[in-house]
Each structure stands twice: as C-alpha cells, then as structure tokens.
C-alpha cells in the first residue's frame, strides 16, 4: 500500500513539475523601415529567422524609398521618379511594379500606381502645422495627369522600368504588404510556425500561435466592438487613426481617391484578409475608398475576406473571422 501511496504522490507531482518547464524564450525585433515601425515576433525564439527576415526587409527599404537618393548601384522608387529614362531595377522590385500596374483594371481605377503627385499634394496640406485642403485647380491637374494614360504610364520590360510622363509612383498603399509577402518564405524555410510580422500596424503576417486554438487576436484602434482571430494568413488595414485632419468639419485621411482627387475619408476602417499580404495591403486601400457595396463585390471577385466600418455600420464577409469584443 505504501508503494501505491508513493505512486499516487509521484503521479500528482509529475504534471506539476512539467508545468514549470519552459521552452525557448519568445523573441521580438523592431526596426524603422518604410517610414514606420516594423516588428517581428518569434514565439519560439528563433533569432536566426528574425535576423534573416529583417535583412531582407532592409534591402527592400532601399528599393522602396521614394524620398532619398539611393546608394550607388541601387535603383529605387526615387530613381524611377526622377527620370524618364529606362531604369534597371532588381527583379523583385520589377515584380512589384508589374503587380501594381495590373491593379487599376482590377479595381475600377481605385488603385493607381502613378498617384504620387496627388498624394504629395495632400500630404503637404494635411501635414502642415495648420492643415489645409490643396487648391482645387492643383487637385484637378493631378487627377488629369493620372487619367491621361496615353502620356503617363509605366513601361516594364523584364527588369527595365520606364516611367513615361510627369506622373510619379507611390508605393505607399502596397509596399509594406508586398514586402511582408516577399519575406514570408523565410519563416517557411526555418520551419517557424509561431510568428507574427507587424508592418506599421497596417500590414500583418500571421503564423500559427503555439497555444490555445492557434489564432492571434487582432483589435482595431478605430473600432472598439469587433476584432479578428487569425492564423496562417495576412491582413491589410487602412484606417484614419492617427493620420487624419479635420478641416471645416470634414475628416481627411492619407488615402486619396485617384479618380476624384479627394482625400475626404469615406470610411473609418477597411481591412482585407487573405494569403497574399501584398494584395491585402493594396485592397484594404481600395475597400476604404470603394464603400461597403463595392467592397463586397471586389473582395468576392478576388477571394478576400473583408471588414468595413464607416463609423456607424460594420460589415464583413467572405469568411472574415470576426468576433464581438
């Protein structure tokens, strides 16, 4: 009987001791890239994986920089925007530009890669110490420039890119998501399932969380009542949080409609959910500009989950795993 007692004791103690054991410490790494804070999390503590992810992200940061002269031998968005001569870019950047070039026809013109001059116009007005709406004549001129596809277009032949006309490239609505898409292979290469990559709180890559139901919880800074439970997917979010200006009672955001030239915010937040982080990033902007009905149609056509909130009503669909908070 004493043996039985000892056995009982041991049986009870073993799970307790096991519960005290712990695996590798989770790791996170942050870096300012693409004019925002990018943070990678490896809950299994895979530092080599995170280092490689950030090495690739840093290379992309040079390619996507539109505001600084790139280092010698590097061709970037800045390079393309400052010449009408053919520019030889890296193969990955050429692939991104090719993707961007294909989006206007798929989004009824709500995504346009050559929106650079228009967004710069609005950025100057909204970021001023006293925010102002740009002159309507300047907005009209920028919209006309984008619409003049005979003279303003991007020609891509292999890795050679030629910008025709005066319209300039803006990768802000797709760049971070595309880059997350491009580095996703590193997590796969390292067989690292439990990861999260946060690109400026607007583009995300989710692995499979190592505990519970395996999902990561997403909450929205612009919507207190809903959240998402995501795993093994990507998320693109466009919202007005922290980037808006109210002028004469109208809320303006950094997201500009290339068809109308308006930056008046038609929504508070729109998100796209799918396996391609680049597509999700671009489509979140399109959804934000499109309105609820058109969002549903475009999301369904592209096989993306979506959530859309205009300040009063919330809609979601195509399997978006929404929960009530």
């Amino acid at each position: 009987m004493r043996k039985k007692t000892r056995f009982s004791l041991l049986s009870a103690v073993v799970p307790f001791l096991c519960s005290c054991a712990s695996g590798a410490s989770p790791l996170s790494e942050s870096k300012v890239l693409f004019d925002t804070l990018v943070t990678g999390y490896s809950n299994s503590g895979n530092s080599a994986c995170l280092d490689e992810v950030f090495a690739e992200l840093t290379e992309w940061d040079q390619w996507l920089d539109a505001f600084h002269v790139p280092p010698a031998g590097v061709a970037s968005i800045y390079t393309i925007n400052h010449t009408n001569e053919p520019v030889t870019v890296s193969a990955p950047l050429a692939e991104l530009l090719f993707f961007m070039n294909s989006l206007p026809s798929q989004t009824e013109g709500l995504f346009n890669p050559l929106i650079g001059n228009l967004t710069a116009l609005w950025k100057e007005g909204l970021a001023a110490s006293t925010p102002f709406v740009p002159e309507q004549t300047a907005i009209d001129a920028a919209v006309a420039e984008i619409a003049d596809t005979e003279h303003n277009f991007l020609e891509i032949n292999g890795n050679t890119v030629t910008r025709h006309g005066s319209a300039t490239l803006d990768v802000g609505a797709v760049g971070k998501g595309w880059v997350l898409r491009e580095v996703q292979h590193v997590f796969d290469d390292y067989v690292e399932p439990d990861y999260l990559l946060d690109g400026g709180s607007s583009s995300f890559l989710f692995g499979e969380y190592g505990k519970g139901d395996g999902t990561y919880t997403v909450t929205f800074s612009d919507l207190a009542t809903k959240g998402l439970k995501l795993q093994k997917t990507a998320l693109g979010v466009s919202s007005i949080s922290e980037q808006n200006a109210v002028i004469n009672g109208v809320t303006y955001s950094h997201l500009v409609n290339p068809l109308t030239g308006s930056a008046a915010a038609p929504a508070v937040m729109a998100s796209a959910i799918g396996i391609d982080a680049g597509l999700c990033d671009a489509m979140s902007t399109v959804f934000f500009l499109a309105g609820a009905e058109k969002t549903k149609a475009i999301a369904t056509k592209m096989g993306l989950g979506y959530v859309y909130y205009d300040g009063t009503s919330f809609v979601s669909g195509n399997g978006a795993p929404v929960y009530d908070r």
Partner: protein
Amino acid sequence: MTVKDFFRRHAYDFLAVSSVLVLSSAALVYYAIPKREDLIASVFVEKSLLATYDLSKETTERTIEIEGKFTPMTLGIKKNAIAVLESGCKSQYCVHQGYVSAANHPIVCAYNEVYIALSGKEPVNSVVAGVMVL
C-alpha cells in the same frame, strides 16, 4: 473492512495526495493570472535607435528629454511602462496613449518620427491594427 476503517487506514495517503493537489492547483492559479511583464523599450528617432531602457529595473518614475525630428519630447519611464508625456506635435496622439506596458503596443509620434517599441519575454498573440505610417 468498513468505510470508516478504510478512511482511517488511508488517512495519511489522502492527506499527502490532497496536499500535492492543493499545491498544484495553487501553482496553476498563480501562473494563470496575468502578471505585468518585464519589458524593454527601444526608442528610435527617425531611423536610428536612440536608446534602450530595461523597464523592469526602473524603481521610481522619472522623465527623459529627447530631441524629436522637429521638437523636443519628454518621455516618462517607470517600472515596466513608458509614455510620451510631452511632444510638440499637433495631433498629440502619442501623448494621449499614456503609459504603455504591453509588448505589442508601440508608441508612435509620426510628426517627430519617434517610435518606441516594447519587447518582453512572454509570447505575443495579439496586435492592434491601425495605420501609423508617416
């Protein structure tokens, strides 16, 4: 053997097993209750890492002055929490965030290009979505 005899004979066995179960349950409850995590704050200005603070070692609240891209800023630091107390930015979003003590909750002052990233040792399984691009 009667039931009474059985319990009398195994009284110490029950006591030993019960003690272990109570201890295990107490430990389970202790570990299940979320505790404030030990955090490290990394402060970036523009693209450069300005400083790193081990917030777990902060014993009293203190302030730190830094130069943002356009205006000076005052950071508040206390045990496992950090805040932007003053900033010359017009929106004041960074100030309104108050003290932050979650590893997945960065503080951003877009105007001054100041980013504060928090990291801890607990697994992260949640994020807050909302654009913070310049």
